[in-house]
């Protein structure tokens, strides 16, 4: 009796929350394109697009339905001959820079590129100063 109760309870609590549809995945969500070159292009793009519902994962990594639909969209458009960067731009027009893992170079993000160069220059300056001092002593 007890065992049955526990079993029943575990079944009751294990039922998943209905947060997904019952529909099968879109055609190209989990199916590769026939042309390996096109698939490689699609894959590279998918790895740099961010999933909207499972934030922090790329759509290539995510199991979310929406990520599957986005993969299908990317593959369908690549197969139709669209350029990866055009697809990225199309998505950024809708979701903002957030959707892309490749930050654009603009007024807000230029330090990302400038800082390494600045730090390198600073390092060279410090080291050269020390070496000069050592040479003198």
């Amino acid at each position, binding site marked *: 009796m007890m065992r049955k109760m526990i079993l029943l309870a575990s079944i009751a609590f294990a039922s998943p929350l*209905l*947060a*997904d*549809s*019952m*529909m099968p995945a*879109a055609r190209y969500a989990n199916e590769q394109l026939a042309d390996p070159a096109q698939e490689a292009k699609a894959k590279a793009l998918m790895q740099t697009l961010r999933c*909207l*519902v499972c*934030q922090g994962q790329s759509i290539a990594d995510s199991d979310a*339905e*929406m990520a599957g*639909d*986005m993969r*299908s*969209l990317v593959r369908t458009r690549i197969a139709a001959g669209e350029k990866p960067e055009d697809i990225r731009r199309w*998505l*950024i*027009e*809708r*979701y*903002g820079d*957030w*959707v892309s893992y490749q930050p654009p170079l603009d007024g807000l993000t230029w330090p990302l590129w400038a800082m390494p160069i600045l730090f390198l220059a600073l390092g060279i300056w410090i080291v050269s100063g020390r070496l000069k001092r050592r040479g003198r002593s």
Partner: protein
Amino acid sequence: MRKLLIWLPLGLFILFLGIFAGGLIKPEGKVIRSQLVGKPMPNFALSPAVPGKPGLSSTELSNGQPHLVNVFASWCIPCIAEAPQLRQLAEAGVPIYGVAIRDRPEDLVRFLARNGDPYRAIGSDANSSVQIALGSSGVPETFIVDGKGIIRRQHIGDIRPEDVPGIMSALATAR
């Protein structure tokens, strides 16, 4: 000066530690808003989602009348919560058009029978393509569109009773 400078790395370290700890303790639940607010409705044409009700195409939507485009699904639980508010808006004469995400006709019929049907037309978006074209990232979401077909506002999440007056006034100014 030199004595003070020696503490700089430690200070920076503690600063970063604080930033990271803050992010871990209170992660930002980020809502991604559509960038299409203020821009025209994208072009699309969806087939009917339920028998006996027309599908939805963007050309029908630019008919000079402000309206709501509701992105929903029968499998979406908050969509049940907003159904009374949608009904109320429909009764007030607001044209509401539905985009059903990844849905099956039989499920939709059951959903509408149970929660009411405020929609003038429902398009079936089986692979979320219109949802993505709208810059929407979940269900339910509601777009307030003006008479010229320009998206004026995006409401993310279910429409609560307290949201209804704001939506009504946004519609009134969206002519």
